[in-house]
């Protein structure tokens, strides 16, 4: 935990300094003029947003991996994020009805949530009975369906409405120009997830072992899973309508935490939130121009996640399944 906190602090610092405009460190504590504006209205809210988005996605990944008994699950792999993106883009079609642009910003998170929920349920229905890989394949299929639909819709939209964010924004993410109001909403969502996660941590552990044992505690494990999926769909739907799809954070972080600490939700959830925040801020620093050019953020998180997914598959962790 200490390491993660230090990492978070370091990445925060880097995130504030580096970006499209380099802010020299001496201006950090005594900002003036343009630097003050950039710092206060652009840089700080964006870095906070990255941190909270990373925390939310990492916690969601951790909970999904436990509840669905699948080490390869996260809101991206499960199709939740792609469904949410589809919902958000769908909202832009309302432009065709001459609704003011500002309305759409409020409606899109709601539609994004609905489709995030739909896509997750779809993945579960497809993959539930086929073991570990069934869910992953189901998620891939669902992600592809919604990503393709997004591509088709944008082809129609972008000619007439150039203000709609382009394809790479939706599919690969772009954390930029997030205002303080959105930070406030992200904070509420993060507190809800962390709060519920801490309160039900032991229950999550039990649900990952046996449904019947969960029933013995007078809790219906499937309703419990739906509750979590609903909450995560709200959070992920909002994130996607804000910054597009930021993928793989939910896979990378819980695996690192599990390796060094514990697979129990009681440790996994708080540790993942801090490490998730740190890694996402670092990815965002690289994404937003530290290497001299802007790179979509999911490309970076995917490159970090790839060795970890390979490690999981090779080590056969995915095969520690039903025990008799």
């Amino acid at each position, binding site marked *: 935990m200490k390491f993660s906190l230090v990492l978070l602090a370091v990445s925060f610092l880097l995130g504030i300094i580096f970006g499209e405009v380099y802010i020299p460190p001496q201006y950090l504590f005594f900002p003036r003029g343009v630097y003050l504006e950039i710092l206060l209205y652009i840089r700080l809210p964006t870095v906070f947003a990255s941190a909270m988005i990373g925390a939310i996605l990492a916690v969601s990944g951790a909970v999904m991996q*436990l509840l669905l*008994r699948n080490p390869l699950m996260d809101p991206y792999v499960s199709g939740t994020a792609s469904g949410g993106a589809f919902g958000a883009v769908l909202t832009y079609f309302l432009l065709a009805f001459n609704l003011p642009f500002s309305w759409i910003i409020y409606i899109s998170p709601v539609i994004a949530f609905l489709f995030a929920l739909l896509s997750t349920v779809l993945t579960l229905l497809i993959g539930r009975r086929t073991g570990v890989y069934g869910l992953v394949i189901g998620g891939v299929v669902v992600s592809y369906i919604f990503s393709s639909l997004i591509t088709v819709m944008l082809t129609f939209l972008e000619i007439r409405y150039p203000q709609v964010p382009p394809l790479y924004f939706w599919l690969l993410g772009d954390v930029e120009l997030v205002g303080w109001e959105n930070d406030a909403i992200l904070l509420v969502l993060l507190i809800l997830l962390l709060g519920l996660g801490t309160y039900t941590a*032991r*229950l999550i*552990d*039990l*649900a*990952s*072992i*046996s*449904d*019947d*044992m*969960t*029933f*013995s*505690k*007078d*809790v219906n494990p499937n309703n419990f899973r739906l509750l979590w999926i609903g909450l995560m769909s709200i959070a992920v739907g909002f994130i996607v309508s804000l910054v597009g799809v930021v993928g793989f954070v939910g896979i990378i972080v819980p695996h690192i935490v*599990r390796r060094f600490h*514990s*697979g*129990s939700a*009681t440790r996994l959830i708080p540790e993942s939130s801090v490490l998730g925040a740190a890694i996402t801020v670092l990815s965002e620093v690289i994404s937003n121009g530290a290497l001299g050019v802007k790179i979509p953020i999911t490309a970076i998180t995917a490159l970090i996640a790839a060795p970890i997914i390979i490690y999981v598959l090779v080590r056969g*962790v995915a095969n*520690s*399944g*039903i*025990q*008799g």
Partner: protein
Amino acid sequence: MLIQGFKVKRGERVILEDFGIEVVRGVNLVIGPNGSGKTTLLRSIVGALGNLRSRVPESKGYVPSEFFSPEMKVVDVLLSGSRRNLEEYYRFAELLGVQHMLDRTFSALSTGEKKLVLIVKALSEGDLVIMDEPMSGLDVRNQKRVLDSLTELKGLKTFMISTHELYMVSRSDWVIVMKAGRTIYQGEPRNLHERVLEETYGTKIKRVDLGDRWTFIPDL
């Protein structure tokens, strides 16, 4: 107490008929062939199938025959779904010999060791302890340890145990024999005649008396 519940169907097949079973304090044994509905009966009582006439009010401990092995420490498995302190599990952890495993990763244990952990958990948590084939996967020494715990706890808890081990009949307080989703015998263990078991299992079975205990041996 009397526990009543409704039938359970899978598609058109009835896997468990409407039932009413007597459950006494001590060890209630459920025996019967594979597919006779033992697991379904136990799952009904634990509340997993929503088919009970009335809720069982006791705190329950459940040992499933199949479970997932997550990558968490044994202590976390013991504490999962529970608000108890770790000390409350020490007594049975020591009794069943798992006290030195607490810090190990659950998924790295052997099948039998995992079973023992779940038995410790159920014994520590429930007044009504339901175990689905707890002896399967356990070596002779660990089977003895479990039996000793049952003997020690007879007056304090109520057990519902399904098993294939017919030697347990003489160690139990009430026996329920199932076949094809029905309970075909409920009663005192000493009144269970070998003929009932022969009809149930469809094979020749002989009762063998060993002083104050007895067992049943199939004529293989």
